[in-house]
């Protein structure tokens, strides 16, 4: 269960019109923590819109729904006017009219996406802070404590901070895994003649000069790049550390965190 009210070290910051739970660095004194949270709130204030702006932002969806309702009503009226007896003919007319109505609703909604009263809003970037860190969704349930009696068995903010740091390292390494795949993509072997298509990062020697010195391994055409191996090992280490930390503080790492060790 996610946190329902703030307590020391666990605060709510409004970013991009959403309440995001954050954990504050436990090494700060209460006064410093308050100051850091205040600065974080101030930095993210421009990302939030006023109520009027938010209502105006809904106009495309509202108009599309209205048009869709009108199209439904029009279809019913036309079907009643035609008064067909045979089922295939009725289906054909309904399908054609429904398609027209759907396209009309989609067009209205898409055109209104660029409406002038929506275009002038400022696209502020969400600011990040090293001292006030958002709690990922996989930790949120544990950070709020269990059951209705909130606060009784909720973990200490210092423990949440450590778990969030460990989870962040793990997700950073996983994101880096994908980016490394992009970086090494042009050295990928042709996937069509890859004997092991399950392995998503399967590097041969590089495209133009395979087969000798310096590369992944001499003659190791379907080998794996050493950077990928190192990153996988680091990921495994991070997930083991997270598991050990979870055992220590009572966070069920295997349940909420994406597979690190057990997935591969």
């Amino acid at each position, binding site marked *: 269960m996610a946190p329902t009210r703030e307590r020391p070290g666990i605060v709510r910051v409004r970013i991009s019109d959403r309440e995001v739970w954050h954990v504050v660095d436990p090494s700060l004194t209460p006064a410093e923590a308050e100051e850091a949270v205040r600065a974080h709130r101030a930095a993210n204030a421009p990302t939030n819109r006023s109520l009027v702006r938010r209502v105006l932002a809904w106009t495309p969806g509202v108009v599309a729904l209205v048009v869709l309702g009108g199209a439904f009503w029009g279809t019913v009226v036309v079907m009643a006017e035609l008064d067909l007896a045979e089922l295939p003919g009725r289906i054909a*007319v309904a399908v054609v009219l429904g398609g027209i109505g759907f396209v009309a609703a989609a067009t209205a909604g898409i055109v209104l996406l660029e409406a002038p009263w929506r275009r002038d809003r400022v696209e502020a970037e969400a600011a990040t802070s090293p001292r006030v860190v958002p709690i990922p969704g996989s930790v949120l349930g544990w950070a709020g404590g269990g059951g209705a009696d909130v606060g009784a068995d909720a973990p200490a903010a210092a423990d949440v901070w450590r778990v969030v740091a460990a989870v962040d390292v793990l997700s950073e*390494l996983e994101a880096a895994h994908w980016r490394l795949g992009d*970086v090494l993509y042009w050295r990928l072997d042709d996937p069509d003649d890859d004997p092991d298509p399950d392995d998503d990062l399967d590097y041969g020697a590089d495209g133009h000069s395979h087969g000798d010195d*310096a590369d992944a391994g001499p003659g190791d055409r379907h080998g794996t790049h050493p950077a990928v191996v190192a990153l996988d090992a680091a990921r495994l280490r991070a997930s083991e550390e997270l598991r050990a930390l979870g055992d220590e503080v009572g966070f069920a790492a295997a349940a909420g965190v994406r597979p690190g060790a057990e997935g591969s």
Partner: protein
Amino acid sequence: MSVFLDDVPGGTLGHGDEFDRDASAVHASGSGVGPHDRGGTRWLVADPHLSRQEAEAALRSALTWPRVGSPVDPTAAGAAAAGGGVLGIALAVGAFGLVEWPSWIAFGAVGAAAGGIPVWAWLDGRVQEQTRARQRAATRVARESLVEVPASFATWAGSDGKSLAHDDLVALARAVSATRAAASTLDAWRWGEPDVDWPHAHAVVDPVLVGEYEAARAVLDELAGSLSYEVPAEVAPESLR
């Protein structure tokens, strides 16, 4: 005699590379990553049995957007769709005895789709498969028997007074190419996305990539020393210069 090819020789209009290669090279060189900022590359034909024409064709097919051999002839699919439509209408009138025109349209449309779409999909899939197979074959040939080298390498190899064995030249070219590949990978990792800040992942990956470059560079330096080839500065990664 060793043969060098220009970058995508004879890439002519209609071969799939209709876009302006020079303009795209100028555009891409601004990114700081990629092969275009090297002032031109040449391709050394490593396989002495490969003729110049075959090598050019392989390079062209491997590097340019694949040209579809022959576009799908719409006649067969159209005939199938028309036949399916007529069959559907005949079924509606004859077998089911429907008399309202929307019913005929419904059966005609379903019949035309059932006849035309599978035929067209099959024809198109066959053409695409042929194109892909040709490109795969060309890519394999290009990987095995062509080595990308800087343009200065080609002028150095072609200059007077050189009496290099073909195998030596190929080994040197492969070393240059491997070093350049490692350098490009390092640059792409460091500078590819300037917005991300991943200290942990950087600490893991960066030393591996630097080590890969340095190993390739050591091999290249040794070979270049024995062949008295002066390694150009552009081989080094920009992030280490």
